[in-house]
């Protein structure tokens, strides 16, 4: 091959203007032994392809891959079984959840069902009327009671009772009673 053509090809190669055929020509050229001194530095570049091309997977790659595929199939089978039962499992899980929620709500409602405040009327207006009437009556009764108490107190005051003499009389009576009871005790002891 003409060396000048190789220089042209190389120039195109560096500019990325070569096609696959031209690049193969370069690879072929550099695999020869008679390479000009100034081009020898590029031999590793073009021999790189041949050296890399001989890189293959190990011979047992296919066997290992087959084994890996088979073991992944087994895993898939297990998954398929779960998949088959998936709708039933979903229903079962849903039922359990619904039942659990139902029971939970029931117990919570039961616990909270104690009536803290309950209305005993249907129509509020008559209820207010009745309540007002009842409160008025209560108020009247309380006022009447207060008035009667005051009148009684006034009546007692008007009587001008000598409370001190009554108190001393009462004291004397108490002393007399205790003396009599002591006497009785002594008599029984004798």
């Amino acid at each position, binding site marked *: 091959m003409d060396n000048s053509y190789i220089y042209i090809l190389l120039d195109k190669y*560096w500019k990325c203007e070569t096609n696959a055929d031209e690049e193969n020509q370069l690879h072929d050229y550099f695999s020869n032994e008679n390479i000009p001194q100034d081009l020898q530095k590029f031999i*590793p570049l073009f021999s*790189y*392809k041949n050296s*890399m091309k001989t890189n*293959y*997977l190990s011979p047992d*790659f296919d066997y*290992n891959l087959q084994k890996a595929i088979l073991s992944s199939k087994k895993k898939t089978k297990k998954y398929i079984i779960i998949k088959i039962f998936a709708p039933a499992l979903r229903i079962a899980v849903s039922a359990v959840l619904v039942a659990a929620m139902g029971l939970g709500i029931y117990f919570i409602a039961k616990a909270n069902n104690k009536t803290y405040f309950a209305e005993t009327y249907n129509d509020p207006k008559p209820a207010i009327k009745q309540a007002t009437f009842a409160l008025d009556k209560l108020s009247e009764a309380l006022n009447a009671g207060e008035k009667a108490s005051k009148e009684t107190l006034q009546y007692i005051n008007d009587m001008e009772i000598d409370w001190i003499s009554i108190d001393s009389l009462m004291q004397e009576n108490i002393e007399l009673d205790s003396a009599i009871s002591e006497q009785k005790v002594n008599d029984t002891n004798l």
Partner: protein
Amino acid sequence: MDKFHSIVLPLKNKLYRFALSIVYDSAEAEDIVQDIMLKLWSKKDEWDQIENLEAYCFKATKNLSLDKLASNELRMTESIDEDKESNSITEHETPFSLISRKETQSNIYKCIEQLSENQKMVFQLREIEEMSYKEIAEALDITEDSVKVNLFRARKKIKELLSNFEG
């Protein structure tokens, strides 16, 4: 089932190389491809809704690889040192080991490491998988213009770095 055997499974080595170009660990890349295949298998009912299954596979591989890279911090930067490079890459007997035997050839990994993630991915899909700009755009979920820009910058950077190594 047919689509899995006709579209997805034949992509396994491309996806593996793509993942490898991101995480730089063959065991990790293999795990990523297996995860993607399993994920796709488990979603086989949705395949009809996926417009471009091949692009979908690359997108998923890209995302998972970047996730793994972020979580494991598996960076090539740690392997610039020759010893570390041989530990992390040659451990699983990849052609990286054959390449790294020659000093000049290991330079390309150092160059690629200098690229941004997008540049790296575009470079990988174009150089190794010979995908068209349109296919790369769909696989990486970016525009065709973005693919061209990233590829241009990647090649330019690699050219500069390789020239510097020589100097």
